[in-house]
Protein backbone atom coordinates (compact mmCIF):
# COMPACT_ATOMS: atom_id res chain seq x y z
CA UNK A 1 0.00 0.00 0.00
CA UNK A 2 1.26 3.46 -0.80
CA UNK A 3 2.19 5.70 2.12
CA UNK A 4 2.81 9.40 2.43
CA UNK A 5 5.10 10.94 4.99
CA UNK A 6 6.56 14.39 5.53
CA UNK A 7 10.18 14.49 6.66
CA UNK A 8 11.53 18.03 7.13
CA UNK A 9 10.68 19.75 3.85
CA UNK A 10 10.37 16.54 1.82
CA UNK A 11 7.33 14.55 0.91
CA UNK A 12 8.13 10.87 0.93
CA UNK A 13 5.84 8.81 -1.30
CA UNK A 14 6.11 5.08 -0.86
CA UNK A 15 4.77 3.59 -4.06
CA UNK A 16 2.69 0.40 -4.13
CA UNK A 17 3.81 -2.93 -5.52
CA UNK A 18 2.37 -2.18 -8.95
CA UNK A 19 2.20 1.34 -10.33
CA UNK A 20 -0.25 1.47 -13.23
CA UNK A 21 -3.16 3.60 -14.45
CA UNK A 22 -5.48 1.80 -12.01
CA UNK A 23 -3.57 3.16 -9.00
CA UNK A 24 -2.15 6.36 -10.50
CA UNK A 25 -5.00 8.82 -10.00
CA UNK A 26 -5.27 7.97 -6.31
CA UNK A 27 -1.53 8.47 -5.78
CA UNK A 28 -1.59 11.80 -7.68
CA UNK A 29 -4.56 13.08 -5.67
CA UNK A 30 -3.06 12.15 -2.32
CA UNK A 31 0.39 13.51 -3.17
CA UNK A 32 -1.09 16.82 -4.30
CA UNK A 33 -3.06 17.09 -1.08
CA UNK A 34 0.21 16.95 0.87
CA UNK A 35 1.96 19.32 -1.54
CA UNK A 36 -0.75 21.94 -0.97
CA UNK A 37 -1.10 21.57 2.77
CA UNK A 38 2.43 21.33 3.97
CA UNK A 39 5.54 23.33 3.42
CA UNK A 40 6.99 20.77 1.04
CA UNK A 41 9.89 21.58 -1.25
CA UNK A 42 11.07 18.23 -2.49
CA UNK A 43 9.46 14.90 -3.32
CA UNK A 44 11.07 11.53 -2.78
CA UNK A 45 9.59 8.46 -4.47
CA UNK A 46 10.39 5.24 -2.67
CA UNK A 47 10.34 2.20 -4.97
CA UNK A 48 11.25 -0.32 -2.29
CA UNK A 49 8.06 -2.39 -2.71
CA UNK A 50 7.57 -1.63 -6.40
CA UNK A 51 8.01 -4.53 -8.79
CA UNK A 52 6.10 -3.11 -11.74
CA UNK A 53 5.70 0.32 -13.25
CA UNK A 54 4.48 1.50 -16.64
CA UNK A 55 4.17 4.95 -18.23
CA UNK A 56 1.48 5.88 -15.67
CA UNK A 57 4.27 6.04 -13.09
CA UNK A 58 6.19 8.39 -15.38
CA UNK A 59 3.06 10.55 -15.49
CA UNK A 60 2.91 10.64 -11.68
CA UNK A 61 6.55 11.71 -11.39
CA UNK A 62 6.35 14.27 -14.22
CA UNK A 63 3.18 15.81 -12.78
CA UNK A 64 4.71 16.24 -9.29
CA UNK A 65 7.93 17.57 -10.80
CA UNK A 66 6.02 20.28 -12.69
CA UNK A 67 4.26 21.33 -9.49
CA UNK A 68 7.41 21.78 -7.41
CA UNK A 69 10.08 22.62 -9.99
CA UNK A 70 9.01 26.26 -10.35
CA UNK A 71 9.75 26.76 -6.63
CA UNK A 72 13.14 25.12 -6.91
CA UNK A 73 11.98 21.74 -5.69
CA UNK A 74 13.67 18.51 -6.70
CA UNK A 75 12.44 14.98 -7.27
CA UNK A 76 14.38 11.98 -6.00
CA UNK A 77 13.93 8.26 -6.48
CA UNK A 78 15.21 5.73 -3.96
CA UNK A 79 15.37 1.93 -3.80
CA UNK A 80 14.99 1.64 -7.58
CA UNK A 81 15.67 -1.81 -8.98
CA UNK A 82 17.12 -2.40 -12.44
CA UNK A 83 13.77 -2.45 -14.17
CA UNK A 84 12.58 0.82 -12.62
CA UNK A 85 15.89 2.45 -13.56
CA UNK A 86 15.40 1.22 -17.09
CA UNK A 87 11.91 2.74 -17.29
CA UNK A 88 13.26 6.04 -15.96
CA UNK A 89 16.06 6.00 -18.54
CA UNK A 90 13.93 5.03 -21.53
CA UNK A 91 11.49 7.84 -20.73
CA UNK A 92 14.33 10.34 -20.29
CA UNK A 93 13.16 11.05 -16.76
CA UNK A 94 16.59 10.32 -15.27
CA UNK A 95 17.46 13.85 -16.36
CA UNK A 96 15.03 15.43 -13.92
CA UNK A 97 14.86 12.76 -11.25
CA UNK A 98 17.90 12.12 -9.14
CA UNK A 99 18.28 8.42 -8.50
CA UNK A 100 19.81 7.85 -5.08
CA UNK A 101 21.40 4.55 -4.15
Amino acid sequence: MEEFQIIDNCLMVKLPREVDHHRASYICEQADRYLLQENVHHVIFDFEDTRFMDSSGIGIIMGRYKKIACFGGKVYAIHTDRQIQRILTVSGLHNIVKILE
Partner: protein
Amino acid sequence: MVAEKEINNEGVCSQTGVYMKNEMELIFDAISNNESFARVAVAAFVSPLNPTLEEMADIKTAVSEAVTNSIIHGYENLYGYGRRGEVPVAHPSIKPGKVRLHCMLGGDVLHIEVEDKGKGIPDISQAMEPLFTTKPQLERSGMGFAFMEAFMDDLEVESEVGKGTIVRMKKKLGTDSWIGSEE
Protein backbone atom coordinates in the same frame (compact mmCIF):
# COMPACT_ATOMS: atom_id res chain seq x y z
CA MET B 1 12.94 -11.19 -41.51
CA VAL B 2 13.70 -14.55 -43.14
CA ALA B 3 14.85 -16.04 -39.86
CA GLU B 4 11.60 -15.13 -38.22
CA LYS B 5 9.58 -16.80 -40.93
CA GLU B 6 11.48 -20.02 -40.45
CA ILE B 7 10.72 -19.99 -36.77
CA ASN B 8 7.05 -19.42 -37.46
CA ASN B 9 6.87 -22.27 -39.94
CA GLU B 10 8.65 -24.69 -37.73
CA GLY B 11 7.08 -23.54 -34.49
CA VAL B 12 9.95 -25.10 -32.61
CA CYS B 13 11.32 -23.34 -29.60
CA SER B 14 15.12 -23.14 -29.82
CA GLN B 15 15.45 -23.23 -26.04
CA THR B 16 13.34 -26.23 -25.23
CA GLY B 17 13.30 -27.88 -28.66
CA VAL B 18 9.58 -28.41 -28.23
CA TYR B 19 7.06 -27.71 -30.96
CA MET B 20 4.77 -25.07 -29.59
CA LYS B 21 2.09 -22.89 -31.06
CA ASN B 22 0.06 -22.03 -28.02
CA GLU B 23 -2.60 -19.40 -28.27
CA MET B 24 -4.55 -17.51 -25.67
CA GLU B 25 -7.50 -15.17 -26.08
CA LEU B 26 -8.89 -13.04 -23.30
CA ILE B 27 -11.90 -10.78 -23.58
CA PHE B 28 -12.41 -8.49 -20.66
CA ASP B 29 -14.24 -5.32 -19.64
CA ALA B 30 -12.52 -2.02 -20.33
CA ILE B 31 -12.00 -1.09 -16.68
CA SER B 32 -8.78 -0.25 -14.95
CA ASN B 33 -9.03 -3.23 -12.57
CA ASN B 34 -8.29 -5.49 -15.56
CA GLU B 35 -4.94 -3.91 -16.43
CA SER B 36 -3.10 -6.00 -13.89
CA PHE B 37 -5.13 -9.09 -14.80
CA ALA B 38 -4.10 -8.74 -18.47
CA ARG B 39 -0.37 -8.45 -17.82
CA VAL B 40 -0.31 -11.24 -15.25
CA ALA B 41 -2.17 -13.53 -17.67
CA VAL B 42 0.38 -12.80 -20.43
CA ALA B 43 3.24 -13.38 -17.99
CA ALA B 44 1.79 -16.81 -17.17
CA PHE B 45 1.34 -17.54 -20.88
CA VAL B 46 5.04 -16.96 -21.73
CA SER B 47 6.43 -18.66 -18.64
CA PRO B 48 6.98 -22.08 -20.38
CA LEU B 49 9.69 -20.36 -22.47
CA ASN B 50 11.62 -19.43 -19.31
CA PRO B 51 11.95 -15.75 -20.17
CA THR B 52 14.46 -13.70 -18.21
CA LEU B 53 13.19 -11.28 -15.57
CA GLU B 54 13.96 -8.45 -17.96
CA GLU B 55 12.02 -9.97 -20.86
CA MET B 56 9.11 -10.66 -18.55
CA ALA B 57 9.11 -7.05 -17.31
CA ASP B 58 9.29 -5.74 -20.89
CA ILE B 59 6.30 -7.82 -21.96
CA LYS B 60 4.25 -6.85 -18.93
CA THR B 61 4.98 -3.17 -19.47
CA ALA B 62 4.07 -3.30 -23.16
CA VAL B 63 0.81 -5.18 -22.46
CA SER B 64 -0.05 -2.75 -19.71
CA GLU B 65 0.49 0.21 -22.05
CA ALA B 66 -1.63 -1.24 -24.86
CA VAL B 67 -4.48 -2.30 -22.57
CA THR B 68 -4.44 1.02 -20.70
CA ASN B 69 -4.63 2.88 -24.03
CA SER B 70 -7.71 0.90 -25.04
CA ILE B 71 -9.38 1.62 -21.72
CA ILE B 72 -8.53 5.32 -21.45
CA HIS B 73 -8.53 6.40 -25.07
CA GLY B 74 -10.59 3.75 -26.88
CA TYR B 75 -13.47 3.66 -24.43
CA GLU B 76 -12.66 6.82 -22.47
CA ASN B 77 -12.83 5.21 -19.05
CA LEU B 78 -10.44 7.86 -17.89
CA TYR B 79 -9.90 7.32 -14.23
CA GLY B 80 -8.22 4.47 -12.46
CA TYR B 81 -10.32 3.22 -9.61
CA GLY B 82 -7.58 1.69 -7.54
CA ARG B 83 -8.30 3.73 -4.46
CA ARG B 84 -9.47 2.64 -1.10
CA GLY B 85 -13.12 1.72 -1.26
CA GLU B 86 -12.91 0.78 -4.93
CA VAL B 87 -15.63 1.96 -7.27
CA PRO B 88 -17.88 -0.98 -8.09
CA VAL B 89 -17.54 -2.39 -11.58
CA ALA B 90 -21.14 -1.47 -12.45
CA HIS B 91 -20.62 2.21 -11.57
CA PRO B 92 -22.61 4.50 -13.93
CA SER B 93 -19.50 6.53 -14.82
CA ILE B 94 -17.87 3.47 -16.38
CA LYS B 95 -18.63 3.11 -20.06
CA PRO B 96 -19.19 -0.41 -21.35
CA GLY B 97 -16.71 -1.95 -23.74
CA LYS B 98 -14.55 -5.00 -24.18
CA VAL B 99 -10.85 -5.35 -24.82
CA ARG B 100 -9.66 -8.43 -26.67
CA LEU B 101 -6.16 -9.67 -25.95
CA HIS B 102 -4.77 -12.39 -28.17
CA CYS B 103 -1.38 -14.02 -27.60
CA MET B 104 0.41 -16.59 -29.68
CA LEU B 105 3.75 -18.30 -29.24
CA GLY B 106 5.30 -19.30 -32.56
CA GLY B 107 8.57 -20.93 -31.60
CA ASP B 108 10.48 -18.29 -29.65
CA VAL B 109 8.40 -15.39 -30.91
CA LEU B 110 5.59 -14.00 -28.83
CA HIS B 111 2.81 -12.29 -30.78
CA ILE B 112 0.42 -10.06 -28.89
CA GLU B 113 -2.66 -8.40 -30.27
CA VAL B 114 -4.74 -5.92 -28.28
CA GLU B 115 -8.00 -4.88 -29.88
CA ASP B 116 -10.78 -2.54 -28.89
CA LYS B 117 -13.96 -1.40 -30.60
CA GLY B 118 -13.58 2.11 -29.26
CA LYS B 119 -13.28 5.49 -30.89
CA GLY B 120 -10.13 4.87 -32.92
CA ILE B 121 -7.08 7.04 -33.62
CA PRO B 122 -7.36 9.79 -36.27
CA ASP B 123 -3.60 10.29 -36.69
CA ILE B 124 -1.55 7.23 -35.76
CA SER B 125 1.91 8.69 -36.37
CA GLN B 126 1.09 11.67 -34.17
CA ALA B 127 -0.28 9.38 -31.47
CA MET B 128 2.98 7.44 -31.52
CA GLU B 129 5.15 10.50 -30.92
CA PRO B 130 6.70 10.45 -27.47
CA LEU B 131 5.03 12.88 -25.04
CA PHE B 132 2.03 13.40 -27.31
CA THR B 133 -1.23 12.96 -25.46
CA THR B 134 -4.82 13.92 -26.22
CA LYS B 135 -5.62 13.94 -22.51
CA PRO B 136 -3.14 16.22 -20.74
CA GLN B 137 -5.62 16.71 -17.86
CA LEU B 138 -5.01 13.12 -16.78
CA GLU B 139 -1.33 13.74 -16.02
CA ARG B 140 -0.29 10.89 -18.18
CA SER B 141 3.10 10.91 -19.78
CA GLY B 142 2.33 10.32 -23.46
CA MET B 143 4.94 7.58 -23.45
CA GLY B 144 2.66 4.59 -24.06
CA PHE B 145 3.58 3.83 -27.66
CA ALA B 146 7.21 4.83 -27.05
CA PHE B 147 7.40 2.18 -24.32
CA MET B 148 5.76 -0.46 -26.51
CA GLU B 149 8.32 0.31 -29.23
CA ALA B 150 11.23 0.29 -26.79
CA PHE B 151 10.32 -2.93 -25.02
CA MET B 152 9.08 -5.04 -27.93
CA ASP B 153 10.78 -5.90 -31.22
CA ASP B 154 7.97 -4.94 -33.53
CA LEU B 155 4.90 -2.73 -33.22
CA GLU B 156 2.05 -2.24 -35.67
CA VAL B 157 -1.01 -0.10 -35.13
CA GLU B 158 -4.18 -0.29 -37.17
CA SER B 159 -7.06 2.01 -36.44
CA GLU B 160 -10.23 3.43 -37.89
CA VAL B 161 -12.06 6.36 -36.33
CA GLY B 162 -15.33 5.22 -34.79
CA LYS B 163 -14.52 1.55 -35.33
CA GLY B 164 -11.61 0.77 -33.04
CA THR B 165 -7.92 0.01 -32.83
CA ILE B 166 -5.70 -3.04 -33.08
CA VAL B 167 -2.16 -3.01 -31.70
CA ARG B 168 0.11 -5.88 -32.79
CA MET B 169 3.40 -6.51 -31.06
CA LYS B 170 6.10 -9.12 -31.44
CA LYS B 171 8.98 -10.08 -29.27
CA LYS B 172 11.61 -12.72 -29.80
CA LEU B 173 12.52 -14.37 -26.55
CA GLY B 174 15.88 -15.76 -25.53
CA THR B 175 17.97 -12.99 -27.13
CA ASP B 176 19.21 -11.49 -23.88
CA SER B 177 22.34 -13.62 -23.72
CA TRP B 178 23.80 -12.36 -27.00
CA ILE B 179 22.66 -8.78 -26.45
CA GLY B 180 24.44 -8.91 -23.10
CA SER B 181 27.68 -10.17 -24.63
CA GLU B 182 27.57 -7.48 -27.31
CA GLU B 183 27.59 -4.64 -24.80
